[in-house]
């Protein structure tokens, strides 16, 4: 472990790279994303790094690489464009239409014309199969093998090359699904992919499982192809270490694992960002915070407590499909620099429509006349007219002002400045309220938390969002612009396995429970065997999934006893469940007998972390880093704010607001009355009310 480590995040516009050198130096780089084949951009980026570190060619750099960790948007793009595999479904007879019925859920209750989600498998490609297991695994109807054979031939005739199988209670008894796979391979050996529901999501209920399994079958062939190509290209270039891929749980695993559970790489980009924020926060000594990422089109946020991002195990909807996998709970609203402001029937609205990067905001000068948040930012002086995006862009302030005056000012009777300020207030309130809603779901009070801001616009708006929420402390790490790449690089291995076993606690068959626990422990061991993690770096937690009768969610109750659990431990288990239920949901029914719903294992394999994050300057006197001043509007008249060169600042520098600290890819806005300090971990710490803290 003495070579280079590289984290790569492929975004919509840029492929971000973060490299940690053998001397623990952290280097950030970017290259345009190649949308047709993301691996080309990845190889270009690696070549850029090779060049930067003085290697003769990509090959000699690849031979010095210990590990490449990758976050890919392939699965997300497939779902956005709905251009995945031709999927067919074999499903328990009578339950062919669960995927369309969606447990009654529709996204827009006020809009009867809101259309159905684009289908992954149309009804003709959903073949009912006579077979049935009961809730306890009793075979109520044998598998009709002839129907499976005919169904597979039908799917073949329909042109389906990826087949999903979802039978009721297959997670209790998977034999019918396993036998179905054998038959599919006999009838259709050239099929590209088979997803068995109990392997994708080993629990109920059936709508969640069929949705997850269909999405898996839809994206898996592309993921397997892409990750396979990338690995082959890296190997050809001389790379011999492990290639790891980011999952939505915030952990990484090898290509073989993610190809089988392709659905687990959805949303790996935003997840990487949260993991990056978590590492930066830990370095700065912050445990409870809200990670906020404001980019061009969206505002993503995640609650992190005790250094661990909240993981959501239910109600994960992505691209109008339910994803029944644990996911880092990153919520997104349509508020970003490109969000368009307009007046409709006398009301000022900002977003969710976005100008994107083409044509982009008016000030980019690419022909757009619809004002955006970035246009308001430049009119109010937060963003510089020249030197934007590391000096690559000049912003047209006059065009932005005219557009705001025309589209917002005139209808509301406001001048350009007040109209721009109106845009700021609306978008900041939208982001603050979105944050509050997410925190409300966890019963968390924003006033007790810090904010970690990243993304191109996070540092520009953080002060205002934080103030709206009564939060006093904001951190902007220097590596913030490439947090997703940092996050994937420092992420740990995560294996999350579930086995279903539904039974009242008092009727638990202890040998069976033990064998289930041993079984998941075994499987996790196998998955992690080839990771070559040093001894002692794997941490495994076993849980029993429990609920009260009638609840349709599970709670994971730790089983420190492990597979050796004894009869007497079951009473402790019940108490632990009641206690946890009381702590998390505010009540417990101690007189009630809990229901066991399954066992779960979560294994973390710890990977090395860099010591410091980013490149530091040496100047601690703000005056020495000041490049000039700019007039800025904070809502109450124009003020002249000094403009500082962030690259020059060193740890310990303390800047009183108003001030603007320009970093290569963002601007840290320090409002009047606030103080900003660059800490030893190379994160800017903004205190909005320094007197009270």
């Amino acid at each position: 472990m003495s070579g280079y480590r590289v984290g790569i995040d492929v975004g919509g516009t840029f492929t971000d790279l973060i490299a940690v050198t053998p001397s623990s130096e952290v280097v950030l780089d970017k290259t345009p994303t190649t949308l047709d084949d993301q691996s080309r951009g990845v190889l270009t980026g690696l070549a850029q790094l090779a060049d930067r570190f003085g290697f003769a060619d990509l090959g000699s750099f690849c031979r010095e690489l210990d590990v490449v960790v990758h976050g890919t948007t392939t699965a997300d793009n497939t779902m956005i464009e709905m251009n995945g595999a031709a999927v067919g479904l074999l499903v328990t007879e009578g339950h062919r239409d669960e995927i369309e019925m969606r447990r009654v859920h529709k996204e827009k209750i006020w809009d009867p014309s809101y259309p159905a989600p684009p289908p992954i498998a149309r009804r003709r490609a959903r073949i009912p199969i006579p077979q049935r297991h009961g809730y306890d695994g009793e075979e109520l109807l044998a598998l009709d093998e002839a129907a499976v054979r005919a169904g597979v031939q039908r799917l073949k005739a329909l042109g389906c090359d990826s087949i999903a199988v979802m039978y009721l209670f297959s997670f209790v008894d998977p034999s019918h699904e396993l036998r179905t796979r054998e038959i599919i391979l006999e009838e259709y050996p050239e099929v590209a992919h088979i997803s068995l529901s109990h392997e994708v999501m080993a629990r109920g209920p059936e709508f969640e499982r069929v949705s997850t399994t269909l999405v898996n079958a839809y994206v898996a062939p592309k993921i397997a192809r892409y990750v396979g190509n990338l690995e082959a290209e890296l190997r050809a270039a001389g790379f011999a270490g492990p290639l790891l891929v980011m999952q939505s749980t915030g952990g990484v695993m090898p290509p073989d694992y993610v190809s089988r559970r392709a659905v687990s790489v959805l949303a790996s980009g935003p997840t990487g960002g949260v993991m990056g924020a978590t590492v930066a926060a830990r370095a700065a000594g912050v445990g409870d915070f809200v990670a906020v990422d404001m980019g061009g089109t969206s505002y993503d946020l995640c609650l992190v407590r005790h250094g661990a991002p909240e993981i959501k195990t239910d109600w994960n909807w992505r691209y109008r499909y339910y994803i029944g996998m644990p996911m880092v709970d990153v919520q997104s609203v349509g508020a970003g620099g490109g969000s368009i402001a307009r007046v409709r029937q006398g009301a000022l609205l900002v977003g969710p429509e976005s100008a994107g990067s083409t044509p982009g905001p008016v000030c980019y000068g690419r022909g757009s006349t619809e004002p955006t948040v970035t246009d308001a930012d430049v009119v109010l002086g937060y963003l510089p007219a020249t030197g934007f995006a590391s000096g690559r862009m000049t912003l047209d302030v006059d065009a932005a002002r005219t557009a705001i005056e025309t589209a917002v000012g005139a209808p509301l009777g406001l001048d350009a400045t007040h109209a721009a300020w109106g845009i700021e207030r609306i978008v900041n309130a939208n982001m603050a309220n979105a944050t509050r809603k997410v925190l409300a779901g966890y019963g968390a009070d924003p006033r007790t938390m810090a904010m970690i801001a990243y993304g191109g616009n996070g540092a520009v708006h953080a002060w205002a969002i934080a103030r709206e929420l009564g939060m006093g402390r904001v951190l902007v790490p220097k590596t913030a612009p490439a947090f997703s790449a940092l996050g994937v690089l420092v992420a740990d291995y995560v294996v999350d396995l579930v086995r279903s076993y539904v039974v009242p606690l008092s009727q638990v068959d202890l040998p069976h429970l033990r064998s289930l626990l041993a079984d998941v422990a075994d499987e996790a061991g196998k998955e992690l065997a080839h990771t070559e993690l040093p001894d002692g770096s794997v941490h495994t937690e076993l849980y029993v999934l429990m609920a009260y009768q009638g609840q349709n969610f599970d709670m994971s109750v730790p089983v420190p006893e492990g597979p050796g659990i004894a009869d007497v431990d079951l009473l402790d288990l019940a108490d632990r469940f009641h206690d946890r239920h009381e702590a998390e949901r505010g009540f417990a029914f101690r007189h009630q007998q809990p229901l066991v719903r399954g066992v779960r294992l979560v294994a973390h394999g710890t990977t090395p972390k860099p010591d410091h994050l980013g490149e530091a300057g040496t100047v601690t006197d703000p005056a020495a880093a000041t490049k000039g001043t700019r007039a800025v509007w904070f809502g109450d008249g124009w003020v002249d704010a000094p403009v500082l060169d962030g690259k020059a600042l060193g740890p310990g520098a303390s800047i009183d607001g108003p001030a603007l600290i320009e970093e290569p890819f963002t601007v840290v806005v320090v409002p009047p009355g606030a103080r900003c300090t660059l800490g030893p971990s190379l994160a800017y710490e903004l205190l909005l009310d320094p007197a009270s803290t």
Partner: protein
Amino acid sequence: MHVDITELARSRPRITTGATTIDPVTAEVIRDTMETVCFEMAVYVSRTATTPILNQSNERNATILDARGRLAALSVGIPQFMLTSTLPVRFALDFLGVEEFREGDVFVANDPYHGGGHLPDYNVFAPVFGPDLATGERRMVLIASIQCHHGDTGGAVPGGYNVTANDIWGEGSRWPVLKVIDQGRERRDVLYAMSVNNRIPDYIGDLRAQIGAAQLAVERLGELIERWGVPQVEESVDYMIDYAARRFREEVAAWPDGTYEADTYVDHDPLGHPDIHLHVKIDVAGERLTIDFTGTDDRQEIQAWSTFGNTRGYTVGQIAAMMDPEIPKNEGFFEEIELVVPPGCVLNPSPGKPVSAGTHHPGAEVGEVIALALQHVLPEKAVPQVYKTGIPTVIVGVDPRTGASFTDHSAEVYAGWCNAAYGMDAWGCQAAAFGNLWKATAEINESLYPHVQWGRDYRTDSGGPGQWRGLCGSHYVKEVRVDAKVYTYVVGMKYPMPGIAGGHAGEPNLLTIRYGSDDPHVVRHTADWVPMSAGQRLCYDYGGGGGWGDPLDRDPQAVLDDVLDEYVSVEGAERDYGVVLTGSLADLTLAVDEAATATLRASRRTAGPSAGER
């Protein structure tokens, strides 16, 4: 004492006087915060309520009202029920007087004849105080309210649906208004009295979740008032109400002037009184909208009554679905509707009539008859937000796994009654308005009850034909594995979901108990504890949604696709759509016979619009 609910519903004067001076941006920021607080109230209930009906169903409405009881902001579970949460607050304001609303108070109400919908809907509300600008004294500025459907409300039948009750007293306990928290102190006497009037042991725990939600809102709204000041908050409420009212009037002004009438019927009440008649006359005059239910059934022997508050909720729920979905839903939205419901008719009963059946039917049909009346002027917006549930199919028995009796309310997924919209075939399970529901599945219910759910797939040809097709209903088959009994009330057999703008009706409902046995029981109107033996099945063929537009105008390729997907049969394509297909479905060789289709459609058109109608 008699409470006139139409009087409660009447428009109330705004708090601020003169023109508002608040800037629109501040008003929008305050409104957005209020809607967030509503959302927080709803989420708080989900997090802390103890029974599934409260913490999992999403059937809850959170609202914020001004000090006169005008709706300022809301977060909705089911649109049709949103308005029945404002009138009980108004009753309390009028009955107790403002001086009885003190800081730290929390109230509870559930009575249909004092503004509520039906008895299981409990409304919890609390005043929010702030300093008056002129006097400096603290006074009531806002009221936070949260309404939830509880699993029981006392009365003769568990669950609050005693559909054969003679009067409201037979349906459960009535609480017009109770103060449960008096200036921060819990009224133990009151809560105890309520707890003994309810079968569910955790009822008070659920009520406490609602109380906590209201108290949370009081705290958050207190911060809002502290930040912006009382005048800004009150002005922004008035501004947003004025804004919604203006948007509403602009929508109405765009509709063609005229008088539009329609009739619809409910099959029968739970006692079998047939053909409950709804009549509406809608008058559009410039920007004024009058909805008049004069002519609606007023037979006093009927046992299905929708209170005025309930009728108003369904009226506004339907109108909202026909307007720009972005208009804020507040007082301005619905005080613009002139609603006439003659006292004594089934949509505005005299006090004492039972309501547990009528809340749903004729309640739901209010939306249907409005959509029918407006289909000729607003065909593209006429999508009835309706269900034909009757009441849930209740199955009781003893679970051999636990030895305890069980009550299965059949709260599972099934498709039914979803109409097509202009330009869009119907999809999913139910109309959009019910999209916040989240129903149970076979894998959930079978671990709770000794049943097997053999299926609930779409029934081929059950969706109403049209240029755009109504949704197919489910073929729902459930086996009981122990001896059991069934209690329910079924409608939509004689009067299924109607088609719109020339579309045809969906297939009707049909419930058969002991399905497939040699002694099947087809439910005529009510099943009063009909017995089933272990191993017998119940089959509910749920009705389809109505189609939109003439089915002869449907693109023949879309019909072919429907046949390939088995929403429509080969025979149905010809019978209902005039589309002739060649080849076979089994061999995937189906194709449209263009010439035969053109000929058939031409002859159908000549024969007149009723040809092909079922």
